[in-house]
């Protein structure tokens, strides 16, 4: 997986998101406080927002190019990029099974993927790894918060994406639940090998899940590197950024 953002610019208030980077890690953390532009960055990559300038490419495919004339903009359904928003956004009128199967066998045909182990992305296997097999017949409204997030993740995986974008998948959950879901995300990472961008403001998620981390502040990349190089152990939260010893403000 090789994702490149070149000169990408998106006006936000009160600042503009400006991104210039190339990624090839398996799991990349996007770390920063709320309002740093993390979600907007994911939306640009997923094709849900059009940048005002710059070029986004994934594995040699141009996803969007606002600088060329005519402009290029690949719609989200043709990008083969999975997106799991913070609240999961499950379809309330569909059963868990129908949610899980919504994108199954569709985007996989459209997105030309290179070397992704898609034979593992079957309904039975994905639901087993996420421990949601027993939920298939349930209505979405009866699921707990943790179950909803796992179903949302399973739904995105079953569409066989070539890149998966996770927007704070564990935010807003209580500590015991987070402790249980963190290993679940690690299992997904190890079992399916789908490259992931993991947006978070929790350093322990970066430390435990990510191979590389980008630190965002005010819409710009402020630091980048291996998690162990950027974070140091601390009392609370469990890790803090090395060269900014004060912990980032807690976010809800």
């Amino acid at each position: 997986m090789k994702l490149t953002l070149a000169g990408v610019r998106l006006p936000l208030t009160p600042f503009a998101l400006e991104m210039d980077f190339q990624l090839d890690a398996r799991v990349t953390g996007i770390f920063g406080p709320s309002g740093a532009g993390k979600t907007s960055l994911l939306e640009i990559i997923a094709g849900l927002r059009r940048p005002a300038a710059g070029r986004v490419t994934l594995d040699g495919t141009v996803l969007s190019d606002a600088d060329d004339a005519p402009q290029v903009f690949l719609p989200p359904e043709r990008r083969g990029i999975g997106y799991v928003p913070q609240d999961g956004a499950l379809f309330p009128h569909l059963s868990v099974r129908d949610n899980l199967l919504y994108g199954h066998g569709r985007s996989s045909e459209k997105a030309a993927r290179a070397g992704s182990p898609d034979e593992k992305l079957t309904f039975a296997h994905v639901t087993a790894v996420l421990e949601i097999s027993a939920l298939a017949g349930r209505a979405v409204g009866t699921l707990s918060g943790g179950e909803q997030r796992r179903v949302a993740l399973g739904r995105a995986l079953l569409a066989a994406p070539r890149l998966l974008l996770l927007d704070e998948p564990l935010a807003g959950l209580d500590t015991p639940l987070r402790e249980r879901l963190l290993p679940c995300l690690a299992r997904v990472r190890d079992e399916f090998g789908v490259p992931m961008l993991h947006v978070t403001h929790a350093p322990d998620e970066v430390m435990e899940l990510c191979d590389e981390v980008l630190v965002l502040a005010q819409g710009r990349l402020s630091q980048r590197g291996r998690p162990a190089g950027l974070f140091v152990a601390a009392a609370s939260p469990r890790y803090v950024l090395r060269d900014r010893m004060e912990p980032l403000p807690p976010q809800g």
Partner: protein
Amino acid sequence: MSSEIWQITWFTVWASALSLLLILPPGVALAWLLARKHWPGKSLIETLVALPLVVPPVATGLVLLKLLGRRGALGGWLERTFGLEIVFTWRAVVVATAVMSFPLLVRTARVAFEGVSPRLEQVARTLGASPWRVFWTVTFPLAARGLAAGAVLAFARGLGEFGATVMVAGFIPGQTVTLALSIYQQVNLGHDEAAWPLLGVSVTLAFGAVWLGERLAQRRTA
């Protein structure tokens, strides 16, 4: 009830149902465009569509009469091209009813579409669904209850249409006379007692439609 009352009741329900069928596709499409898209002239169209709610119905009827009459721009063309007569026929009743209930349908349907989280539509796109598939598998089912409520309201509004109808359709017994027109005519002729059963039918129909509409609207928000 006399056969005349049955005929009038049947004609009223039929005209209102037909006008609802005519306005459903454009009404739902316009409501979706208003709820989801930004386009030039949007606020102008919004205002135009709402006008029949506030302009005196008789004035709307006059506009329709001038437009659809034999010498009107649209009416003349329809007659020359298709041999269709509109004014002072049952068609005029349907057209007047459609124009008057259109705003109610569009407003209710718009609120129904606005109640569907754009987030769900975006996620459906990232799962590989085309905009068309997203509409039919996510947007429409989630808005369906509100859309049905809007349709029922538009139908109920159509049942009672008077002002615009009387201008373009006139009182032609057996052809353009609806419940509302008949009530007015009977009272006007001094036959108050003949108006009572018509009133009873009107209230019963309206009660049923409004009750159904409210139930649909409530369950949607529950």
